């Protein structure tokens, strides 16, 4: 059920921060080289999730800061993730009200588009700096991230759902 159809408990800042810390942790896990391409970018996924659900708290600035953290953690060009994350956060924010009424599977399609866009931005940045094209397997992570979207959204909303439904 889309988020806008339910009355939810407010979410605490601490919970948002915790979710981002967990996402960073998962991204920094020592992935095997062979499957590193298939690992979804959880930080990007959570940026989209929170920008969609808490647009007043999580926006372009948060995305930028998380991007810088990812850049340092991965040891790549500083600003590459920051730029990509800022752009997807902005795109979610301007269409937030539309996206919020979509069903989860429709949101998943949008998430796939957004994460792929983030990767395209990073590829463009790196190719502009002289790196060769990395191959199509690089984009596999976005497909998995989109597949993860419905279960992830349900899991995150579980925390906010009320145990007893409102009586009218």
């Amino acid at each position: 059920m889309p988020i806008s159809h339910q009355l939810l408990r407010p979410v605490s800042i601490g919970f948002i921060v915790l979710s981002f810390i967990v996402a960073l942790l998962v991204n920094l896990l020592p992935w095997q080289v062979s499957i590193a391409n298939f690992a979804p970018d959880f930080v990007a996924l959570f940026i989209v999730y929170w920008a969609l659900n808490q647009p007043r708290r999580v926006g372009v600035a948060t995305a930028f800061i998380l991007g810088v953290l990812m850049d340092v953690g991965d040891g790549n060009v500083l600003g590459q993730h920051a730029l990509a994350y800022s752009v997807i956060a902005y795109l979610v924010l301007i269409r937030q009200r539309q996206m919020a009424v979509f069903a989860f599977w429709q949101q998943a399609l949008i998430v796939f588009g957004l994460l792929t866009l983030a990767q395209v931005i990073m590829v463009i940045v790196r190719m502009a700096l002289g790196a060769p094209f990395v191959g199509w397997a690089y984009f596999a992570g976005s497909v998995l991230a989109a597949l993860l979207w419905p279960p992830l959204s349900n899991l995150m909303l579980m925390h906010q759902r009320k145990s007893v439904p409102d009586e009218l």
Partner: protein
Amino acid sequence: MQTSPPAFFKQGPKPLTRLLIFSLLSIGLIVGDAQYSMLGRIREQVSVLLYPLQWAATAPFATLRNTADFLSRQTELMAENRQLNDAQLAARAQAMRLKALEAENASLRELSVRRDTVGQSSQLTEILYNGRDPFTSRLIVDRGEQQGVRSGQIAIDASGVVGQVVRVQPLTAEIRLISDRNQMVPVVVERNQLRTVVYGMGAHQPLEVRNMAPNVDIQLGDVLVTSGIDGIYPVGLPVAKVVKVERGSSFARVVCAPVAAVDRHRFLLLLDHRSDMPPYPEAASQPAGAGKHKKGN
């Protein structure tokens, strides 16, 4: 939402304004980092902030491995222990002879003027994780500036050169593997002392020796070892083995495979090699008065 929202809903600058601000900032960072590499300090600060997370991400795996090691069978260990004791006795006898040889060798070395193969100190590091960036091949290791790691140090494993430290942070360091596209290693062919440079061609790709004449004396199976000419790599570390030589076009195409197991490791050795190279001669760096004025470090 046809007109501007009422004051109640106003929340600071609009998303577009924010996007512009932060994307300009990002592009500034990208340009500053890639073109001028002047953001080392920022990177260091952020990396200290990030270290607890890096540690938390890798610690469970390290613990798991340690427990697995701990639980390896007792009998196996005892047998191994006995075997090692025997081996040690044999080795001790050999070591005595070796000491004499070493002394002899040292006195011989003093006669010749080579100074660059003196015993090197080294540092054992554990790999924290592979850099996830698919554009480069890098490793993050658990020693940094505070443990005395310096940029430019060479990382080796038991069989040969693995890479070079390219970026040092207070608690971690980044190692660029020899397969990275930007990594070049000055080498000599062990068989005939032909000097050349071996280039990386990207992650999981073989190495390549470029710009060699078609009749160059390199054969299948030749071993390339470091030449030590640059003053960064110590002399004589194995780097690569020639696996393919194509002599079709105007240049020979020499493809090599790294000797070290570049892709699978837990531990690496960082060599602390510092050679006292004499400065570059003044005249050689100024052909016809053009170009930059170079000086040795």
